[in-house]
């Protein structure tokens, strides 16, 4: 019997799937996201998982979660607090409950609420049976037992049947939010292509979850979120790491150069290596090197040979690569270094986000070794940042550090797919003959505009020359210990970075009368933007600007900062960019910091900014 259901319209929903590391929560979240994307909602996601592959089952450190926000309007963040928590066990409930507001929906897998599991996480009693969940809309569901019952007749092991409980949960949630499920069916067929019995079982578990929603009296209301008004075009949902990898592939295509990636596996950057290793067809060569130093060394060697040399890593890897980055500064070769930042120091919290490698990117090398630094602001923006990093590297013959972070690397959003022909033209010209008036070749004779030296890969007769880490004489590149020459070369290398053409920073201030500017860089764009929107909706004025080029900084930045009474700068570090801006522009930037391994919530930024505005 089907209970008639009331359908309620919502404009925005935040769901968090939480369970044990082995419960398949990342996959469940990913599938729900994909179904939601098909519907045309705007989306933002936040995966959150432990560094341990399988922490002890049922414990708090083993909790893995995936949060997805979707709306009928353009959204900037995966949401501060979930409206719905799917808790697959007591640990997932305990770990996530503090972040829920009263009234939130909690769907719990009651089968896992055993005495032993409750004890594991320190619950004195069963929270489902006392009043500790009072005020929440709790739906106790026997996810495991119902899945097992639904799969009784399937020729699979009990273990495999149990593992399908995430599909039961997905089916239930898909029903509850009226999601189209065709893409999940196709996905299951692809994923378990080699084991048809698992395709059937997982599909059956999904259907059982869906039907349970339809028939149970527990869920009286079903929800709908209408498609968002988005720019017309072709979309796909994309994580920052995938976008970054595709941006590097695109840079290779648009520069007509082979891409060479040297990389050593490191969380949270490894997915870029995985992705790029799939695109040999487009001329990408990937090398999993013996260590971080070899990875960048090989990329420098490939760049010397005329390829677009790239190395991808996280903070600890950049620390190891420092000496080779300095070599690339001296050699003046194009090189892209991707740092997907994670919480440090040392191993820190490898799967958690942070923005604390800015100082290292700007200053973390021996000698005067300036490089260009840029940071993407959202998952899809990683695509364009990779192209921009490549443009700067190729045009100015310099190492460029691209600072992504764990938040946007693993998070996802819909991406309006670009026309390839409209992407920047990155074609370069190699040295094709002697460049001196005397008919000789001078490897360090510079282009007067860009200050770039000729790129002369081996292979052309007559241009044989030697380069190296020793200081070079201007123009000839010969070894030189001349004091005046060294002073000149140090200043020239600095001027070369300062000469990089970067766009002016743009300020968003619909009121045109704000006294307070909130500045950000990198992945804080989403939460800062959402906070600004909320403030403006409440009639408060605030200006927002986001720094994409961190070295060199936009030429107009100083003037922009000086034109506001107060400049506030939230960063997921202890004030690294604020420090730079104070030193450079002598402006008393208000630094707002958090290093919790998690992105800012828009609510916390909203209340902080409100305070600043009121006191400005």
């Amino acid at each position, binding site marked *: 019997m089907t209970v008639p259901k009331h359908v309620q319209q919502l404009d925005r929903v935040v769901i968090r799937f939480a369970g044990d590391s082995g419960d398949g929560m990342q996959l469940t979240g990913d599938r729900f996201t994909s179904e939601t994307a098909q519907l045309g909602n705007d989306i933002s996601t936040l995966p959150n998982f432990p560094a341990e592959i399988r922490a002890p089952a049922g414990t708090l450190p083993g909790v893995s979660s995936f949060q997805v926000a979707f709306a009928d309007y353009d959204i900037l963040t995966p949401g501060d607090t979930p409206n719905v928590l799917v808790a697959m066990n007591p640990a997932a409930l305990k770990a996530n409950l503090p972040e829920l507001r009263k009234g939130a929906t909690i769907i719990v897998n009651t089968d896992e609420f055993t005495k032993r599991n409750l004890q594991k996480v320190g619950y004195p009693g069963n929270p489902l049976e006392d009043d500790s969940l009072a005020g929440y809309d709790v739906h106790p569901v026997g996810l495991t037992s119902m899945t097992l019952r639904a799969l009784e007749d399937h020729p699979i092991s009990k273990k495999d049947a149990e593992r399908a409980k995430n599909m039961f949960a997905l089916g239930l949630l898909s029903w509850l939010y009226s999601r189209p499920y065709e893409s999940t069916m196709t996905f299951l067929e692809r994923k378990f292509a080699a084991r048809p019995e698992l395709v059937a079982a997982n599909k059956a578990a999904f259907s059982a979850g869906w039907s349970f929603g339809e028939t149970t009296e527990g869920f009286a209301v079903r929800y709908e979120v209408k498609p968002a008004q988005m720019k*017309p075009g072709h979309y*796909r949902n994309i994580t920052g790491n995938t976008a970054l990898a595709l941006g590097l592939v695109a840079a290779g295509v648009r520069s007509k150069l082979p891409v060479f990636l040297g990389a050593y596996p490191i969380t949270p950057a490894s997915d870029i290596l995985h992705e790029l290793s799939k695109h040999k067809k487009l001329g990408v060569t990937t090398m999993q090197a013996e260590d971080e130093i070899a990875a960048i060394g090989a990329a420098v060697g490939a760049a010397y040979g005329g390829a677009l040399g790239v190395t991808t890593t996280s903070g600890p890897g950049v620390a190891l690569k420092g000496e080779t980055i300095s070599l690339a500064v001296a050699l003046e070769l194009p090189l892209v270094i991707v740092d997907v930042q994670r919480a440090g120091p040392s191993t820190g919290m490898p799967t958690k986000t942070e923005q604390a490698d800015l100082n290292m990117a700007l200053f973390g090398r021996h000698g005067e070794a300036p490089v260009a630094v840029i940071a993407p602001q959202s998952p899809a923006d990683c695509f364009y940042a990779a192209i921009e990093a490549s443009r700067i590297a190729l045009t100015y013959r310099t190492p460029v550090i691209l600072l992504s972070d764990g938040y946007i690397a693993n998070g996802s959003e819909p991406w309006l797919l670009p026309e390839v022909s409209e992407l920047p033209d990155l074609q370069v010209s190699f040295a094709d003959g002697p460049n001196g008036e005397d008919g000789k070749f001078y490897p360090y004779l510079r282009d007067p505009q860009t200050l770039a030296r000729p790129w002369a890969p081996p292979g052309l007769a007559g241009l044989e020359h030697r380069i*190296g880490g020793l200081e070079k004489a201007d123009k000839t590149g010969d070894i030189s210990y001349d004091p005046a020459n060294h002073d000149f070369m140090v200043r020239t290398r600095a001027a070369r970075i300062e000469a990089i053409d970067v766009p002016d920073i743009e300020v968003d201030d619909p009121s045109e009368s704000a006294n307070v500017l909130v500045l950000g860089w990198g992945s804080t764009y989403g939460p800062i933007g959402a906070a600004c929107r909320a403030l403006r909706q409440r009639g408060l004025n605030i200006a927002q600007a986001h720094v994409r080029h961190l070295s060199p900084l936009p030429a107009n930045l100083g003037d922009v900062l000086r034109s506001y009474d107060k400049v506030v700068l939230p960063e997921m570090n202890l004030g690294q960019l604020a420090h730079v801006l104070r030193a450079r522009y002598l402006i008393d930037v208000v630094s707002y910091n958090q290093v919790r391994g998690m992105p800012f919530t828009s609510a916390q930024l909203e209340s902080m900014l409100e305070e600043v505005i009121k006191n400005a």
Partner: protein
Amino acid sequence: MPSAPLQLSAKDFKSDQEVRWCPGCGDYAILAAMQGFLPELGVPRERIVFVSGIGCSSRFPYYLNTYGMHSIHGRAPAIATGLSVSRPDLQVWVVTGDGDALSIGGNHLIHALRRNVNLKILLFNNKIYGLTKGQYSPTSEVGKITKSTPAGSADYPFNPISLALGAEASFVARTIDSDRKHLTSILRAAAQHQGSAFVEIYQNCNIFNDNAFEVLKDAETRDDYLIRLEHGQPLTFGKEGQFAVTHPAGSFGLTVQNTSEVDGSELLVHDAHRDDPAYAFALSRLAGPDLRHTPVGVFRSVQRTSYDELVRGQVSKAKEKSSGDPEQDLTALLNSGDTWTIL
């Protein structure tokens, strides 16, 4: 590629840079041998690249009129790997020393060898740090008194040949700076090898470790100290051929006996192409700390597909599926997966 035979001489490979090694340094002899050898290689100058790390030997690229990179300490094999894999048209040589290759760069050396990257790696072994002025190196003998070890070094040394063999090297050889003919023959064999060629060159540092290899050079002693390895030739040596390398029954290794005491059937014939590296390894263990029974020549030379070829093969195979228009392929890639359209 030019089709006319190249008419190059040693002079064509001399760069315009002033050579700045100490007078009497063994590096001069190696440089001269290299400049003398390169013309016969038949590879145009612009297709030859020398990559080095840091140390006295690593100045080598500056003095050759080819392409070259003097990089950073220990990293030359890694840099050269990236270059070699992405540019199959080049012949890439790595010049390194005992400190550069075996201490700070040990990791890159062993991994280049196991991958079998198409590099010719020349390790100038003088058993001392020269450029930093005389500290002991990873090939210095135990007890070595140096500036950093006034009471004698406590470090047990590497045997570079054993190390290279343990790292799965497909070509391993040793030669000596002062024997130009032998040195040239080894450079030739290394250049012809497809894959990593590892060559240890005993090189004299006349400032900080003079005469370290004198017994191998002195006309009085050398013939009794050196075992000249030649593929297909019996492993006998000595002024009168009075010594023979044998494989005693029940032993894992090789030993040296008086030829007169050896039955003809026990005489070993050098086989550099043996697949099992244990034989070459046993040869590498013959010499003692006094350098008596030091084999020179090619220890091992076996065929194994190079890393470069395997990597490029994967790329070429993938490219067969390309439409021929990279922009079209990129468009298809960007539009792959679950996409949707907003009208």
